[in-house]
């Protein structure tokens, strides 16, 4: 899995991130984080709760500036919100007054060059959105409102919205955390298929070690607050991975190894 180009797509060097500024009562969420992510790499970040995993996404996306250190994405220093991101959260955050189709179209109304072309090329974009919805199993639900969809369907819908404008960088903040195990495993396949097809760079924040190993090329374990990178594990399992793979010894051994590391972190 080392076929990524030599220049890293994301390069974080010695970054601290704090909420509430540099003052003494500011809450330090990340401490001296350094990591490199190649273009098209699928990275998973695991760690105990409150370890600043979500803060890492804020740092990379430019939503929150680092207190110290530097962040480069696509060769440029991050100074404000990036415009190449797709984001999905644990909460699907769909707009209840828009249908599934219309929710997917939202980024195209904002992101250039789509926003300018949107009115004139509406039919073309509609086809694009319909195809994407169909690819995650939402064909026939285009005109349903979010509150008419199940939790799993809402999350599929949310993934489509994160991907419609073909972002180079996809940030997933525990997107399957609120779903039942069966739906969650179904969505792993959906995400894997989408990633294999489009190859965006992905950072997935999760609590689920099996999920991390199933999806990622590289798994980072973070320490408790303030979050630091404790370890980096490359997952060299062939793709596409299947649910059957998750019961093989190779897979379970890796899960145990990661579990061990997290347990160590938790010990005082």
């Amino acid at each position, binding site marked *: 899995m080392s076929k990524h180009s030599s220049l890293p797509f994301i390069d974080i060097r010695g970054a601290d991130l704090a909420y509430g500024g540099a003052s003494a009562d500011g809450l330090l969420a990340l401490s001296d984080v350094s990591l490199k992510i190649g273009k098209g790499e699928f990275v998973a970040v695991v760690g105990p709760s409150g370890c600043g995993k979500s803060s890492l996404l804020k740092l990379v*996306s430019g*939503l929150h500036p680092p207190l110290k250190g530097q962040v480069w994405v696509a060769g440029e220093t991050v100074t404000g919100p990036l415009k190449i991101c797709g984001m999905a959260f644990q909460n699907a955050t769909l707009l209840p007054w828009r249908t599934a189709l219309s929710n997917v179209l939202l980024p195209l109304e*904002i992101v250039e060059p789509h926003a300018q072309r949107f009115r004139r090329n509406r039919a073309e974009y509609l086809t694009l959105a319909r195809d994407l919805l169909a690819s995650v199993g939402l064909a026939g639900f285009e005109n349903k409102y979010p509150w008419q969809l199940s939790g799993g369907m809402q999350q599929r819908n949310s993934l489509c919205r994160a991907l419609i404008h073909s972002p180079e960088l996809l940030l997933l903040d525990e997107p399957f955390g609120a779903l039942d195990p069966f739906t969650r495993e179904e969505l792993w396949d959906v995400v894997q298929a989408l990633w294999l097809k489009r190859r965006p760079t992905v950072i997935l924040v999760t609590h689920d070690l099996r999920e991390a190993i199933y999806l990622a090329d590289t798994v980072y374990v973070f320490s408790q607050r303030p979050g630091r990178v404790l370890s980096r594990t490359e997952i060299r399992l062939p793709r596409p991975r299947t649910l059957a793979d998750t019961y093989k010894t190779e897979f379970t051994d890796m899960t145990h190894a990661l579990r061990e590391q997290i347990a160590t972190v938790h010990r005082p």
Partner: protein
Amino acid sequence: MNGVQKRLLPWIITLGFFVLWQIVCVVFRIDVFILPAPTAVIQSLYTFFGPIMANAAQTLFTTLLGFAIAVGFGLLLGLIVGASRTIYDGLYPVMVGFNSIPKVAVVPVLVIWFGIGTIPAVVTAFVISFFPIVVNVATGLATIEPEMQDVMRVLGARKWQIMVKIGVPRSMPYFFASLKVAITLAFIGSVIAETVAANSGIGYLMMAASSRFDVPLVFAGLLVIAVMGIVMYELFAVLERRITFWATRAHDIVS
């Protein structure tokens, strides 16, 4: 409860209210100067139908005009206040203070400024009804989920785009909820002004009637105001269900 029963219920309860009122008046032999029975009120309504309708039209006109100004002004101010935390913090105490002033106390001032007639009624209806609209619209804007803002910001959305795409539609249920409150307040405002400083309108009619001790006519006036209030409220409730159906869906599931 099935659909027909549910639809009949408000009528049955309203009718029951008047029947009870009638029974109380008859059984306790209450003087018509104290509390006229519904039959006496309806009698009066019939006798003075022409003047009552003419004055009701005047009240409806002043109320709707004041209300319309309140909607425009309230929506605008609500959007401004909701869009900026700084303006919100700065303006809020002034607005709360303004809203705390009893509007009856403002009417004499309005008379000094505008004289007696339609304008004080319109202005009173306006000042009494704009506050809930401002507060509700501002609340709808100010409570956009941070995650949703993040989703928009990493797409490169500007502040105004977040407001247009998310803030405004999101505040619509709040807006329509406030309209239902505001329209009934607007009636209170215009009638208050009419009782103090007008020569037409239901408020004026009631004052004139009470000075002649024509209590049934006073109650007829009250009844007409109540009916106008209900009709306008219902109108906005229907609009609300049509336009922001996505926010009131819980009711559909229950029924």
